[in-house]
């Protein structure tokens, strides 16, 4: 584990393989600061945990949030610089770490998302009595890996970063002691992810064997000119690598672990997986597909398009099947919806396989991911806030939330409408428009139509949930059945006494309220000025 949390070592090692020659490379510490600060903080937290009294353990959470926040601030001086470091000293000058627009944007997403997760977790760690030191160490380790990933420009660093991001996540999922569901989920997640890693490593080694390089740029140049005797090897390598990364993005048919894992994990961890875990997978896929294997675009383009169509359909249909009275329905629905959203995220990457300027198409994925990150974290924040610890979080429990927690209900409604892409969730709508635009631009008309159908399907469950928030609390549980019009009338007439019968929900804890307010404000600002998020669509990222 320690080896994995020190990405820089692994890094240098990865470079050795490819470089040969001069071994000493200069390091631009400012450029690598974001992942390094988080990794160091992880170690500090782990050590500090040993010396802190039980009642002061809460400090670890604030320390972690602080570290993530300051790591995010170190991104500021890097903007517009396109810094590179860990460059080969040989003639090719290939660099393993590049802080370009793409890297900085994903790092912003990852660090910001991890910061929000940390705020969410402060309450959860206390309430669920999770082991504080381990929890914060794992969270920070995973975040450092996810922050390293978008800046990596060689296959070895990519794989290592991806593993650093995902290995601690298994432990996070299984951290609820003595919960069968939780450990089962962790095992499912672990097995599927390890399979992906194995496949990916095999693919990477094939690609290395065929091209003689690990650096994405060199691989991209070498692949079209591979010796014809090695072309099968190269093609297999490309396919296996892509399959591995597709697995990590939870694209269908590799999505089966998602719902159970999210339900089994503590809610903030589920939020983390749905946003940062996905961001890591997607940035890896983008880098590999667009930067390393552009010469195979005519192969992976159609495959990714089919995967995108499949993923969004499976995810949205899965979400549609959720019944209001099922235990953990809220998290389960968000889990399925995150699978569906992953399908939308795949569309521009698939379109990049057809486009003349693949970089610009990928910008739509980035823009959509930013919108999704803010809004989905917000939705999870509300779920974490209003779902008292130990409750089974049924969707039906959200009925009448507008009466008990008007602001939380309004925020959740706004987040759900953003996810659905309906006004007043303007940013969600326009993020979808950019994705549609990428598809239409690339001539993927059929995919655009499939996505259009999915948007309508998704609307059903998002709007059902939204409508539920504003329904009067039913007088009797029997009236909670969908379409219980008669019950509703009774509920409406007897809203006064019925409201009193609802168990008084605890007041929102401060960190949770701050999180909801923060994500809500961000989503609102982005809805007023969608350019904030959409500026990445259609600009050169690399």
């Amino acid at each position, binding site marked *: 584990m320690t080896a994995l949390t020190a990405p820089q070592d692994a890094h240098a090692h990865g470079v050795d393989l490819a470089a040969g020659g001069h071994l000493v490379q200069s390091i631009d510490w400012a450029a690598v600061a974001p992942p390094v600060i988080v990794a160091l903080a992880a170690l500090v937290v782990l050590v500090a945990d040993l010396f802190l009294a039980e009642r002061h353990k809460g400090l670890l959470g604030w320390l972690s949030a602080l570290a993530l926040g300051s790591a995010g601030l170190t991104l500021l001086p890097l903007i517009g610089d396109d810094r590179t470091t860990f460059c080969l000293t040989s003639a090719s000058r290939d660099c393993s770490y590049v802080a370009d627009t793409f890297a900085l944007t994903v790092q912003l997403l990852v660090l910001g998302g991890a910061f929000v997760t940390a705020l969410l977790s402060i309450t959860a760690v206390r309430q669920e009595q999770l082991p504080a030191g381990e929890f914060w160490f794992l969270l920070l380790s995973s975040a450092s890996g996810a922050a390293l990933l978008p800046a990596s420009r060689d296959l070895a660093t990519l794989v290592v970063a991806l593993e650093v991001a995902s290995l601690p996540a298994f432990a996070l999922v299984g951290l609820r002691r003595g919960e069968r569901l939780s450990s089962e989920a962790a095992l499912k997640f672990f097995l599927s992810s390890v399979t992906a890693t194995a496949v990916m490593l095999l693919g990477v080694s094939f690609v290395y064997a065929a091209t003689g390089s690990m650096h994405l740029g060199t691989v991209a140049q070498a692949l079209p000119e591979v010796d014809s005797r090695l072309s099968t090897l190269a093609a297999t390598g490309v396919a296996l690598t892509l399959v591995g990364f597709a697995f990590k993005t939870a694209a269908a048919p590799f999505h089966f672990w998602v719902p159970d894992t999210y339900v089994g994990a503590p809610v903030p961890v589920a939020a983390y997986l749905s946003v940062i875990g996905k961001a890591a997978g997607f940035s890896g896929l983008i880098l590999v597909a667009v930067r390393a294997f552009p010469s195979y675009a005519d192969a992976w383009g159609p495959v990714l398009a089919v995967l995108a169509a499949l993923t969004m359909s499976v995810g949205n249909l899965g979400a549609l099947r959720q019944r209001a009275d099922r235990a953990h329905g809220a998290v389960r629905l968000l889990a399925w919806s995150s699978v569906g959203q992953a399908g939308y995220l795949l569309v521009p990457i698939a379109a990049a396989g057809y486009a003349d300027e693949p970089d610009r198409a990928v910008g739509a994925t980035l823009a959509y991911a930013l919108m999704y990150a803010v809004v989905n974290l917000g939705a999870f924040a509300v779920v974490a806030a209003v779902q008292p610890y130990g409750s089974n979080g049924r969707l039906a429990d959200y009925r009448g939330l507008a009466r008990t927690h008007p602001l939380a209900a309004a925020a959740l409604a706004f987040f759900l409408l953003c996810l659905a892409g309906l006004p007043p969730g303007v940013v969600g709508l*326009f993020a979808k428009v950019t994705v549609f635009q990428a598809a*239409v631009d690339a001539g993927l008309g059929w995919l655009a139509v499939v996505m259009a159908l999915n948007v309508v399907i998704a609307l059903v469950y998002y709007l059902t949930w939204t409508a539920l928030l504003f329904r009067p609390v039913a007088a009797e549980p029997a009236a909670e059945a969908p379409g219980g019009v008669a019950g509703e009338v009774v509920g409406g007439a007897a809203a006064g006494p019925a409201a009193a019968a609802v168990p008084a929900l605890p007041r929102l804890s401060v960190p949770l309220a701050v999180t909801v307010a923060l994500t809500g404000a961000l989503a609102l600002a982005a809805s007023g*000025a969608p350019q904030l998020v959409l500026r990445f669509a259609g600009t050169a990222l690399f």
Partner: protein
Amino acid sequence: MIPLDDTALRGLLIAVVVLPLLGALAALLPAPPGLRGRGPDQAVLRHGVTVTGAVLVLTVLLAVGFDHDRPGTMQAESDVSWIPALGVRLHLGTDGVSLPLLVLTALLTFLCALYSYAKMPQGPSPKAFVALLLLLECGTLATFAVLDLMLFFLAFETVLVPMYFLIARWGGEGRGPAAWKFVLYTLLGSVVMLLGLLVLGLNAGTFDMVRLAEAHGSGLGHTTQVIAALAIGLGLAVKAPMWPLHSWLPDAHTAAPTVGSVLLAGVLLKMGTYGFVRIVLPGVPDGAHTFAPYLAAFAVAGIIYGSLACLALARKGAKGDLKRLIAYSSVGHMGFVLLGIATLTHTGVNGALYANLAHGLVTGLLFFLVGALKDRTGTSDLDTLAGITGGALYGRAPRLGGLLAFGAVASLGLPGLAGFWGELLALLGAYHPAAGLSRPAFLVFLALGALGTLLTAAYLLLVVRRVCMGDPAEARAEGLATVPDVRGYEYAAWTPLVVLTVVAGLWPGALLGLMDPAVQSLLPGVTR
């Protein structure tokens, strides 16, 4: 005319769109001291009347300040970049086509707010009701005022959520499924429309409606135009609604509260037909030309289908619902609008726009009347209302009965009332369709449309005979509930509609003079 400079006009148009949105937000906040009124409910309903009233005043000022000498050009234009990444601009403006619709929207929403102030529909708190009503107004006004395809789509979608909640929360029986049907149909239509708008905008290189109209399809291949026209047209046809995509409409109308029905029929349906005139006809003329005969055929099918459905509902013992009947009559009336558009001639499109406005006024009035009747008697079932020998509304509530008869004859297109000119011009357009369209086919459509007017007259007169005529003594003997006559607030809400129906019927030149130059600039190169 009052001389208003362009800056003032621009400010007015922006205020018209933004004010309802601000009002919707303000409605959710607690009333400030001094404006609390008799209680929170009364205060918020009064807030709704104030805001919609202010918007109405602003639109009227806009109409007065509008340069009536050049209604064909865009006026009160403001154009600011909003999302450079997508090329979306905040481009607002109005011309002779959209100005009457803006005024109609503001008027109907104001009347609805006024009506709700006195008679709040059954349901949860008026706070949310007023906020949704204002959001709905913002969306519809924006639809008619924006000149950017993406903004048009945004505005088009904005009305979905408020209308869904208005039906689902304040509606009558069967409101849940009806609201779902409404939202799913229109959303399915509008995502298809979005794809069409993207195909159009990306291929033409601009999302600006004015520039698209000026280009008039130049630089767009035939295939692109056909695809764009089909996709955009489908989305708009769901909203319009065009037969056979209309089936959400009767359910939504039957379940919606009175003001919901009024706005749905009076304003929301117009968004569909407006989109045809503003985007499809000038933006993709080749595509429009390809689909015009099909559109006309479906329109005529809608006319006949709507009338036959209404006749079936109006029959004795059919258990017909009066609201549903008027909803089906909307399908027929919108059929005339679509037929006028499909002729691709100035005459036809002018007729379509005229019929559009007339339908807004007359059907709005009819839904108000039926809503009032339902409030008084507790039912809108025609058989119950009419009893065995007739409802005798003339005898029991003469003013209400008279108004209902007035609405019915206006709806059937009696010369001298608003409904006449639109249908006449639409049929006239079909007599001489645009060059390249099959004249024999359009003559058949003309004949069928004319048959439709007869059927319309038949069912509306049937309704009048069954509900309004009869012996009051016998009706009382049958145990029909007593019906109080028109109340003060009802006069306030209905008189403007009645007056405008008569004015539009007697002085069509006022509106046509406004619309025709705008239509001519949208459809250049057409002689008729």
